[in-house]
């Protein structure tokens, strides 16, 4: 591969040993910083009997205690509003963001200094450049620009690499579709769900997106960007390549991206992060190819050091050699596979929302869907509510519903899914993180 393939050829092509040495050098500095400045880590290091000079090899990382979201939340409660993790107060920061709050929980509040904020754009540059975005591109950002950190880093990353940035901002979907075409966008950034929504709206408007100038879609915010069936549907509707990325408010930006070779997974930006994959129950590391929970250490945000943070993301790591791009960065096969607590147990059968979506997306004429779990007496029921494309005849619906129920049952040990037709516009639409699973059981079994 030529140097033009990479944003940062020097470290993106390091061998595994050199990469580990670089990570160790950065880890020592980060731990020194946290021990000197963060009240949270001063306490947790002391409780764990850890001192930064114990870091002799990368394996010594496991001497550090892991950090959970619950501990972070408790810290915010102990010292509102930002908790004890930050090394400085709001006066040192230039940005304040929060988690999306889609789960109904108290949001995590984060700060960024000028350096931290610029670093977040830098991480997006790794991903954008890696998927082939170049200064000649015109990029449309379908994002509402609020307190949720979302695509903020992508916005500044586009500017940094020299692309022409069109901030979509808060406006109706129809307006965004028209702007994408009118401005001659070659790149569009959105969630996977919203990319589908934009395509549906375009069809209503009589706009042929496949004939537009859009060549690349940068997806983020949901695991669906790596669900093969969903990705294939998006690429077909747009006539463009879709590249998956994933990030989180807790680190402020993306930590994985799909390169232009589309290897069926996302590269970990390993010169800026240490990513571990552990058994969610034991916390012990799992091997290549085994699904486990992501645990992240970030070298980026200095005002809130993040060491061994348990993300609850489910991933399966595979070696860098899986991709032909020449990067030394390992990958997560299939991107983020879901959440460790995603799995639903229904009458003894495991149901994963990601797998259900993969099946649903194989069917044409699905406008929106929702998985609903209920309980009658001691009997769990699972229904797939489907909002078909407008105008679908009753006969065509019956045919599709029958085939859908059969496909779902075959993939779930014969479990019977009620496939129900929802009225047009009945199901919720999503711009950011879609929440299509509704568990109404009083005492859910298995999460």
């Amino acid at each position: 591969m030529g140097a033009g393939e990479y944003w940062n050829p020097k470290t993106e092509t390091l061998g595994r040993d050199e990469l580990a040495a670089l990570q160790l050098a950065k880890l020592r500095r980060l731990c020194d910083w946290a021990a000197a400045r963060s009240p949270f880590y001063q306490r947790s290091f002391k409780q764990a009997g850890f001192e930064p000079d114990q870091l002799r090899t990368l394996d010594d990382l496991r001497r550090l205690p892991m950090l959970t979201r619950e501990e972070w939340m408790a810290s915010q409660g102990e010292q509102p509003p930002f908790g004890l993790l930050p090394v400085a107060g709001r006066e040192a920061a230039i940005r304040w963001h929060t988690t999306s709050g889609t789960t109904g929980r108290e949001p995590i509040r984060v700060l960024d200094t000028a350096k931290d904020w610029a670093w977040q754009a830098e991480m997006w540059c790794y991903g954008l450049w890696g998927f082939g975005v170049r200064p000649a591109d015109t990029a449309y950002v379908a994002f509402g620009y609020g307190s949720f950190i979302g695509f903020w880093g992508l916005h500044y990353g586009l500017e940094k690499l020299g692309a022409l940035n069109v901030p979509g901002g808060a406006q109706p979907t129809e307006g965004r579709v028209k702007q994408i075409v009118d401005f001659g966008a070659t790149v569009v950034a959105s969630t996977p769900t919203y990319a589908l929504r934009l395509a549906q709206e375009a069809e209503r408007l009589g706009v042929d997106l496949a004939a537009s100038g859009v060549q690349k879609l940068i997806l983020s915010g949901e695991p669906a960007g790596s669900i093969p069936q969903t990705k294939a549907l998006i690429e077909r509707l747009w006539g463009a390549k879709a590249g998956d990325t994933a990030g989180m408010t807790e680190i402020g930006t993306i930590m994985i991206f799909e390169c232009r070779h589309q290897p069926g997974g996302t590269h970990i930006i390993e010169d800026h992060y240490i990513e571990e994959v552990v058994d969610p129950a034991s916390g012990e590391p799992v091997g290549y190819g085994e699904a486990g929970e992501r645990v992240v250490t970030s070298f980026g945000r200095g005002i809130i050091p993040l060491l061994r943070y348990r993300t609850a993301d489910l991933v399966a790591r595979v070696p860098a050699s899986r991709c032909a791009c020449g990067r030394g960065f390992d990958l997560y096969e299939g991107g983020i596979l879901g959440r460790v607590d995603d799995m639903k147990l229904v009458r003894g059968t495991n149901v994963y929302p990601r797998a259900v979506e993969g099946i649903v997306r194989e069917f044409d004429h699905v406008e929106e869907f929702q998985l609903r779990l209920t309980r009658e007496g001691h009997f769990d029921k699972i229904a797939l509510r489907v909002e078909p494309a407008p105008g679908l005849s009753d006969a065509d619906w019956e045919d599709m519903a029958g085939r859908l129920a059969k496909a779902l049952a075959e993939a779930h040990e014969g479990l019977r899914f009620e496939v129900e037709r929802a009225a047009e516009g009945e199901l919720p639409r999503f711009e950011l993180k879609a929440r299509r699973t509704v568990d109404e059981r009083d005492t859910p079994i298995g999460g």
Partner: protein
Amino acid sequence: MATTDLLGRPTTEVEDELLALYGRCKALLERDDLTPCVRAGARAATVGLWNAVNDLGLEHEQLLDLGA
């Protein structure tokens, strides 16, 4: 000035130039006689160079005490 990166490898001519510029920007930010417009410009320049220095594994440090 560092002559090796964090991996102990000799720095290149471009990397030496980058480190020199970065060091001068940090030194400027340490002064207490900067006007607001100069401080903001110096801060932006320092942050920009920090990213390059950090990406190349030449240095990994925090800039909080310099207001960044």
